[in-house]
Structure formats: structure tokens, C-alpha cells
């Protein structure tokens, strides 16, 4: 396995989780997020949480009336994994007591799940659950493309990108309009964003037809920035003969034969790619179908592959931010969009690392802060917990999460202001 979890041993998880939930998990930010400013009644209270406990025991339909209750329960159960579900019509923990049929999922963030295993046919570096810094570029591309489209095309503003803890990323679109989207709306958005289609029985998974939609052009612009370095150099998709054949399988048959003759003897991948591009340019003038093959190749190798089923259902569960990945020990941390290109999954802290960091001796500065705390005995416990995560490498991720939440708060404050302004005008 290429990914080394040198500092993490899954056998220690049961010992680390209590510490994590007692001293490090950012409950107050977490509650602030899911409460959405208290704008809608019972929004937090009717939210489903689901816990995965030791030995894959799965407990669905958990719900909590306060932040405190959530905290207490998580500290009691010490879940290996936390999933977030929908906001229901009733409290999920009472779902058995309401008449069947009336317990319904009403709202949820619009979510996207991109998993590296879905790229197995176009990665040469790793397969299945493995990732490396080479193929991680695929996630970077995915974030750029989807983030742009969700903002510019769909007008969403509050997008939380989260590392899944192992081999992928999640996106939580938190705008009110996104949370209220119907199942049909969700699937329409997901399909608008899906370009790579077909399973094991389909070789050519991207087919473009004229005219090329502005969304596709914008996505291609992103791919073009990465393609040469990522695909041609790092993945070496035009290296070995089998690889070249795989690429050429995406080219229309007549062009393929021409290209094969021209490419004979040429070995440098960059040159080969240039030849394919030129061929496409030459063919562009002809009226024949399939003149976009160079674009189709780029998209098939680089375009984000969404798990559409996760996005479609209002009631679909998705792993929560700040949950631990039991296999890697890494925390599901939010990704700062400003730093997405330098985001390195291997640097994301593991639970063992941040727990260790807690045990480090305190610096002078921290000590003096602590003595101040003692003067204000009442909030001491609360403040200590706040300080605790700040002493670990989790701090910067929580800080980013805070700024994300601030952005949301500003927007609904603006909304409230506008509403009250409207009322002032007679």
C-alpha cells in the first residue's frame, strides 16, 4: 500500500476516540452549522445522525434536541464513524412512533461524493482504495470544475468541500435553495454535472455533440490546465503501447487508422498528444461526427466522476465532516478552497497525531492563557476545550470551518435585514 499510516494503528482507535470526542471534536461549530442560525424551527432537532460503532454495528435515526445532548451521546457511544442524513418531518429517534408514511425526509444539503475508485480505468498509478499524490490531482480538478459550476451556473454560495479521510472528497452545498431542492432537482443538477457515462460495457464514456455547452467549455478550460502535466506526464497515458491503444480506442475508426500510421516510431508522449490534437483540429472542419475526440479523451481521463446516487436522494447519508476514517485514522477535514491546489491528503492529521499533540507539554503562552481561565471558573471547561484543539494540527481546519460558518451567518443576516427593510417601507 502506498499510503502509509505510519503514525496510526487501527487497533488503537477504541482508546483514542473517547479522547477525541471529549477534548477535540469541534461541537460548537458543528452545532452552529447544522442549526443554520435557528432560522427554521427544529432544524437541528429533526436531523438524522447515524453512528457506526465497533464491529460495523450501524445505528440509524439518532437525533438530538441540543448541542449538549449530541455531545453527551457521542461521548458515550464513541462512534467509529458519523453520518449525517436529512432533516425529517419528525424527530428521527421517534420515527417508529409516527404513523408510517408521514415520517418523511424534507430537506438536506445538496451533496456530492467523488471517490477515487471510480477512476480505476484511467489511473495507472494506483487502484481501488489506494491513492497517491499523482492521482490526487483528479480530486483537485474535480473540485475546481464543480465549484465553479455550482457557483456560476447554479448560483450557490456556501459550498463546504471536505476530504473524506481516505480516497475522495465530499461537497456540502449549504445554501437554503440547495437544502430545499426536491429529489428531482437534485438528480437534474447531478446529471447536468455528469459527463462520464457508462459502466464496464462502455469503452467511450464521454460523447460530445454540437454545440458544446458553455458548461462543458468552462470545464474543459480547467482540465486543459492540468492535462499535459497530470495525464501525459505523470500518468503516462501515452507511454506503453497498451496505454496508447486505450486512448486511440476513443478516436473514430477512420481517424484511428490514419493516426496509427502517423504515430509509428514516435515515442515521446508529448509529441503523440500533439499529433492527436492536431488531427482533431484538422478534422474539426469536416462535417463528420466525432470531431471532438481530443476533448472527449481529456474529459474521459480527467473529468470528475460523481456518484450520482448519493446526490439524488434527500435521505441519503453521507459521512460527516470531522468524523474519523477508521481505516486511515485521518480526520474528515474541510478543504480551504484558496489552498486546494496544495492540499495534500497525506498531511491531513490522524486521530493518533492530534491526540499525541495534546500530550505535549504546554508552552508558556498557553499556560498564561490558562491561568486567566481559572479566574473565570464558570466557563473554564468550555474554554479549555476550545483551547485544546488549538494546540493540535486540527486548528487550521477548524479555523477554516469557522470562516465558512461566518460567511453563512452574514448571508442570513443580510436576508433578515432585507426582510425588515421591506417591512419598514409602507
Amino acid at each position, binding site marked *: 500500500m502506498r499510503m502509509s499510516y505510519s503514525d496510526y494503528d487501527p487497533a488503537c482507535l477504541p482508546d483514542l476516540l473517547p479522547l477525541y470526542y471529549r477534548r477535540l471534536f469541534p461541537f460548537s461549530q458543528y452545532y452552529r452549522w447544522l442549526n443554520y442560525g435557528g432560522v427554521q424551527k427544529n432544524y437541528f432537532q429533526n436531523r438524522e445522525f447515524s453512528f457506526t460503532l465497533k464491529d460495523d454495528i450501524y445505528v440509524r435515526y439518532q437525533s438530538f434536541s441540543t448541542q449538549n445532548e449530541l455531545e453527551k451521546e457521542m461521548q458515550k457511544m464513541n462512534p467509529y464513524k458519523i453520518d449525517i442524513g436529512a432533516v425529517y418531518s419528525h424527530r428521527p429517534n421517534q420515527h417508529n412512533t409516527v404513523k408510517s408514511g408521514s415520517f418523511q425526509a424534507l430537506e438536506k444539503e445538496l451533496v456530492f461524493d467523488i471517490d477515487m475508485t471510480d477512476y480505476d480505468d484511467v489511473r495507472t498509478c494506483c487502484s481501488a482504495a489506494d491513492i497517491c499524490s499523482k492521482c490526487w490531482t483528479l480530486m483537485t480538478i474535480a473540485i475546481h470544475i464543480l465549484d465553479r459550476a455550482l457557483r456560476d451556473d*447554479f*448560483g450557490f454560495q456556501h459550498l463546504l468541500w471536505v476530504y473524506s479521510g481516505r480516497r475522495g472528497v465530499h461537497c456540502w452545498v449549504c445554501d437554503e435553495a440547495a437544502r430545499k431542492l426536491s429529489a*428531482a432537482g437534485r438528480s*437534474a443538477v447531478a446529471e*447536468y454535472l455528469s459527463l462520464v457515462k*457508462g*459502466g464496464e460495457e462502455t469503452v467511450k464514456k464521454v460523447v460530445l455533440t454540437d*454545440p458544446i455547452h458553455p458548461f462543458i467549455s468552462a470545464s474543459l478550460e480547467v482540465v486543459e490546465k492540468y492535462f499535459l502535466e497530470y495525464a501525459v506526464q505523470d500518468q503516462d497515458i501515452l507511454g506503453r503501447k497498451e496505454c496508447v491503444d486505450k486512448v486511440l480506442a476513443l478516436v473514430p475508426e477512420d481517424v484511428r487508422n490514419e493516426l496509427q500510421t502517423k504515430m509509428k516510431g514516435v515515442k515521446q508522449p508529448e509529441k503523440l498528444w500533439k499529433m492527436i490534437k492536431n488531427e482533431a483540429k484538422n478534422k474539426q472542419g469536416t462535417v463528420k461526427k466525432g470531431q471532438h475526440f481530443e476533448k472527449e479523451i481529456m474529459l474521459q481521463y480527467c473529468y470528475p466522476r460523481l456518484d450520482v446516487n448519493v446526490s439524488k436522494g434527500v435521505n441519503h447519508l453521507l459521512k460527516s465532516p470531522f468524523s474519523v476514517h477508521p481505516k486511515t485514522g485521518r480526520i474528515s477535514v474541510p478543504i480551504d478552497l484558496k489552498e486546494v491546489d496544495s492540499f495534500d491528503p497525506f498531511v491531513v492529521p490522524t486521530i493518533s497525531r492530534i491526540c499525541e499533540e495534546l500530550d505535549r507539554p504546554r508552552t508558556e503562552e498557553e499556560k498564561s492563557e490558562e491561568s486567566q481561565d481559572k479566574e473565570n471558573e464558570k466557563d473554564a471547561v468550555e474554554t479549555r476545550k476550545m483551547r485544546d484543539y488549538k494546540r493540535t494540527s486540527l486548528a487550521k481546519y477548524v479555523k477554516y470551518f469557522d470562516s465558512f460558518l461566518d460567511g453563512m451567518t452574514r448571508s442570513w443576516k443580510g436576508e433578515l435585514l432585507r426582510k425588515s427593510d421591506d417591512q419598514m417601507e409602507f
Partner: protein
Amino acid sequence: MQFQRRHRKLGTNPQSELYLQPLQFYGEPPLENISLAEFETFAVERLKLLKTVENLGVSYVKHSSQYKLKMDNELRLLHFPYRPDTKRRKDHISHFILRLAYCQTEDLRRWFIQQEVDLFRYRFTDLPPQQKLEFLHKNNLKYNTLSDKEKNELSDKLLMSSYSVSGVTVEKLEFYKVPFQDALDLVRSRKVYLKAGFAFVPQQDIVTIVLNDFRTRLSKALALTARSLPAVHSDERLHPLLNHLSHAYLGQDYSIQKNVGKISLEQIDSLSGKSFPLCMRQLHQALRENHHLRHGGRMQYGLFLKGIGISLEQALQFWRSEFIRGKVDADKFDKAYAYGIRHMYGKEGKRADYTPYSCMKVILSNPPSQGDHHGCPFRHSDPELLKQKLQFYKVSPSSITQIMELVKGMHFQLACQKYFEVTHNVEDSSFSLSHPNQYFIESQKALGGGKDPKRDVDVPQKVQETSQHLAETAEDLEALFKDG
């Protein structure tokens, strides 16, 4: 029966006003009393109508001139014209009766909505332009149009987003600025330009908006109806009829088994070559090769196996023995996969007895993606690969050409039926293929030399009939599935 008591406004008669319009969103339920006999006739006739809409949609390219022609004919034969207002009452009432029958499960709702939307689309497209506009205004579908300045700024993007618009006409064309939630079908297929949450819809695509609205209203209405259903079910005259009507939508559902355990696991390999439709053969092969199938594949194949009579115990043994040859050990299988299999057999979760997937479901829902082997090979394979596969299965070149023609015309079920005929040496099969399990039964029948060892796979049990009249209705319905 009376649907609902409401006070009518003095001086107006909303019903007759409603019937003045050629088309409606079915926003108001009918308020009159009708006889039980009329209730039944209307219901059965509407069902026939929707079955026809479904069949035509499968056999013809929707909205082609051929489709339109057929639709015209069929609607006339079924006495469902909508232009002269005399029959509009029947259209109205029968729609609401079927709502009662088709609101109960998600599958039923999906089918009903799909057919009603197709019917509506056909009718709306057929209206003259003036009436289309009137309809939009009556139903509060008013959107802002783009100013010339906006159009100029965006003309490139607008041009690139619409198949039907060419450069010259962008200026002349009206574009509506519509929240994207109201134009989902156009968004889904990227047939419209999107900016900041608004879709810019060219005037000729406005029909899609209307349909989207109709679909949303209908979907909400069905959910509401489902909630008030217990009251209707307490009516012993209606309950059995409604139940029977809802059983009718896909004909046989292949869930009730009498020959459970008659097939042994050892037989599956040979049966998969002889009697499985291509989709199941493909799944079986993938399972044997990879010792694994992803969720979509397990569902499609697992329920099919259940449908041919594999018992729960057999199924567990079958999947376990295959999975543990791959990356999954017995312990992981029992934890992660056995639940799903018991679930299929109604032994877990909400304990619903799941029915095997029909062709429509396989073709239309949950298309395969990376790593998946499920779906319909005629719908979801590259034509080249499909051709190779057929060659590998020793289908003659001329038959392959025929099959590929059908695939090209999007007649996937017909292509599969052709494949059946070729591989079973029958000239003209006497059934109309709509279900993988039906394929299996027909294949066993054909291979058994006319007599049918599996014939005791039965149609869903009929609900107890309460009157002679109902029994006749039932027979009528039975006939409907046969030719459906």
C-alpha cells in the same frame, strides 16, 4: 361516490368552466356523485389509455410524427379525445380515480407520473400556439423575458446552449429567465444556458417548463393522496378494485413464487447460457469472473434469481460462495452483504417483499457507471462491444444487423426479443417482452418443447372479488396485461 364536499361560489360553476379548457393541470378534484359502475369503467379505461401511452413510448421515438399518428389513432379508439369538451369529464374523473390506485408505493407513483406526463406532453404540443399561451397564463406560469441588451451580451452562450437555435434567430427569439428549479428537464440534459441559478429558456422549449410544473404538482398531489388513503381503504367497495388496478401497471410482477427451490445452484451456470436474458447472463459472468458485483448489480441479479425460484437459503449460499473466492472473507460477507440479500427477500428493514426489476426499470433507472455490470446490454453497451458479444454468442451476422438496427432505433426490448427468437430458433415469439423473468419463463417453455414445467409461476394473486361485476373487470384487466 363523492370525493369531497366543498362550497361552491354562487353564480359560477367551476366544473363546467374547467371543461371549457382543452387541457388542465388536474388541480381540482371532481365534486359530483358517480355510480360505482361508472367509477369502474372510467378507471379501467384510463388504465388502458396509460398502458397505450407506455407501449407507444417504448415502440416509437417519442414525439416523432409516427408516434403522434399512432397516439391520435389510439386515443380515438379508446374514446379519450380531449378537444371537444364532451369527454373532458371522463378525462378528469378517471385521472383522479387512478391517483387513488397509484399513490401507494414509489414504484407505482413513478409509473403513473411518467405516463400522465407523456400524455400531457402529447396533448399540450398538439395545441395551437394561442391556446398554449392562454394555458400558461391561466396557470400562472409567467416569467420575465430577456431584454435585447441582455440577449446581445449573452448571445454566444445562448447559441451554444440550445440545439434548436441558430445564430440568426437569437435576436428574434424570446428568451425567458426561469429559476432553474422550474426547468429541470432542460437543465438535466444541458439544453439551456444557466447563469447564477437562472435558466434562459428559448420560447419553443417552454413546453418543458409546463411539463416540469405538471410533474411537480402531480408528484406532490400523489404524496398527499397517499396520506388520506386509509380513509378510502376503509370503503369495502373500492378497496379491492383499487388494489387490483394498481397491480395492473406492469402486468405480472414475478414476485410470487411457487417453484421455490426447484432450481439447484449447480444448474445456474448452464441456465445462464440457455435461458437467461443477456443482462442477467452478463451479470452472472461478471460475478463468476470478479467474485463480486456492486450494489446495482446485486439488486438486479439477486431479485431476478429470487424470481426464478432461488430460495433465500440458496441465495445466501450462492453469493457467499462466490464472494469469498474474491477479496471478501466469510466474516465480512456476513456483516456487509448478507443483510442486503435478506433484505431482498423481505427479511430485514421494512420487510417489503421486493419484486424483480422489469425491463423498463432496468432501462430507465440507475444507469451503470464505473465498475458496474448491471443495466440493459442493449441500452447501456457500446454498439461495438454489443456486436462482439453477440458474435461471441454465435448469433448470425444477419441477425446481428437486425438487432443493431433495433438498438439504433432505441427499441431495446424488441432487440432483446429478437435475440430471444434467434437463440431459441422461434420465428415469431408469441409474447411481448417486458421483464427479464418473463424471458426466462418463455425460454424454459420454448426449450421444454411446448409444455411448460415452470408454468406454476403465477400472476399476482387476485384480490377477493366482491361482485360479479368486479370479476369481469378483472378479466378485462387480465386481457390488458397479455397484450401489454
